[in-house]
């Protein structure tokens, strides 16, 4: 193995992601079958697996420069062959935002679930339009797409907090012992802390390249914290005294005061 391999793969962030994936994998496959079929557990695991795959793939593109240059050329980017922003855009800014929206959807009541469905459809249509129309090429920074995705996650989190205030099932719980609350809080912080930096990335990169690297570290640290919470969600049945069971909403369920009497 040459030094380029170590340069690409031996990095605190990637190693952390790999370790977190292994932990998530162990805890997920230790879950009983019925829990594994529950979206509250398999969706975090899916996000974890997806992150593990694309981060390692990203590292591989940095290792195999020829491959990265070929993909860039295929996408029409011959100007910056050393960029792998196409992967970051598709995986982190688009697919992961959709996966997070799906995750938030599992914690909402049926009428609010429908809003998320429309948000996902809207996000998909807008991102594809912006990409294919050339407004935001896939191989360059995509501030508009990020801003739309971040706003959607912020709106979805608003829906979650609204449900927490009004829903009988959420009112019967202690939010500090709910993993959905912590996942939501960390998502909220990640998107709000990286919002300004991501939207103004091009400007900052031109004028303050060192600052961009520092700001990017915040994104990475928040990413790690988010994955840690996802693992806690997967492992939560092992710690019944630490976490409360999440309120689960069936599609046809109607809530009335009679159920609480």
């Amino acid at each position, binding site marked *: 193995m040459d030094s380029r391999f170590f340069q690409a793969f031996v990095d605190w962030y990637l190693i952390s992601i790999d370790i977190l994936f292994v932990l998530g994998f162990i805890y997920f496959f230790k879950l009983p079958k019925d829990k594994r079929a529950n979206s509250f557990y398999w969706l975090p695991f899916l996000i974890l697996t997806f992150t593990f795959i694309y981060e390692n793939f990203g590292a591989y593109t940095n290792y195999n420069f020829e491959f990265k240059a070929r993909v860039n050329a295929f996408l029409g980017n011959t100007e910056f062959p050393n960029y792998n922003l196409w992967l970051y855009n598709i995986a982190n800014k688009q697919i992961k935002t959709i996966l997070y929206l799906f995750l938030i959807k599992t914690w909402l009541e049926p009428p609010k679930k429908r809003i998320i469905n429309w948000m996902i459809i809207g996000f998909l249509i807008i991102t594809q339009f912006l990409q294919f129309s050339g407004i935001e090429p896939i191989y360059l920074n995509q501030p508009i797409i990020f801003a739309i995705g971040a706003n959607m996650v912020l709106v979805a989190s608003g829906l979650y907090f609204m449900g*927490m*205030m*009004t829903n009988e099932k959420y*009112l*019967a719980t202690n939010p500090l012992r709910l993993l959905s609350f912590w996942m939501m809080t960390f998502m*909220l912080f990640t998107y709000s*802390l990286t919002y300004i*930096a991501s939207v103004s990335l091009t400007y900052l990169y031109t004028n303050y390249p060192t600052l961009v690297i520092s700001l990017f570290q915040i994104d990475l640290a928040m990413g790690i914290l988010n994955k840690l919470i996802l693992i806690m969600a997967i492992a939560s049945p092992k710690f019944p005294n630490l976490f409360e069971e999440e309120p689960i909403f069936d599609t046809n369920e109607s809530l009335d005061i009679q159920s609480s009497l």
Partner: protein
Amino acid sequence: MQPEANQFTFLLFSGAFLAVLMGTFVVAMVVLHRQRQIQNRERIEKLKTEYEKTLLNIENEIQQDTLSHVGRELHDNIGQLLSLAKLYLNSSKPEKQAEGKEYLNQIIQEVRGLSKTLNLDWVESVRLEEFIGQQLEKIKSTGHCETKLETIESFGSFPKDQKLVLIRVIQECLNNTLKHANPNLIEIKLIEEQGARKIQIIDDGKGFDTKQESKGSGMFNLKKRMETIGGKFSLSSEVGKGTFIELELPN
């Protein structure tokens, strides 16, 4: 370089401001949640108390009715039977004495029947459609008016508390009809519409103007009682066109 430095400071502060805003938002959410939780607990407690109070009232009303019924039965039926039994048993003729013994057996049966109505265990054993049938039969036997019962096979059962409330509401509706409507026909339909079980009480009596404010609290109580068990009460009526009451039952 000065404008760029300003822009940089602006970005830095905007980021920090957003982070602080989010932090405040989350903390506020937790505090608000706690407050709502306390309010919700109080509301549930209030509803529970109201529910228990309604049930207690209904049980009292049913017991009062039962006691009146027992009193009437003792006076009009068992008292008469006992007098007859005494008369026949005092007779020197053996056939009369045998008849007197038969009366005693009948009295025993009647007393057993009455004793069963003294507690509310019968509510558990009787089906709602059975109870409605009995009530309509009673009305018919008095000669006040004709009655008709229409029911579906799978109307299902109810917990005792819900059945108690329903029994009382139906009794109250029928009493009101007999008292105020002077109908020729009372019809009760037990139906299922879009997954909801409903009881419709229809009469062809005098009817009344629903826009006019009611003097009593009867309708309000009926509505409230149905709501206590998670059901709904609706009424429509027109002068000269009878009354239509619909009770939507809890699922």
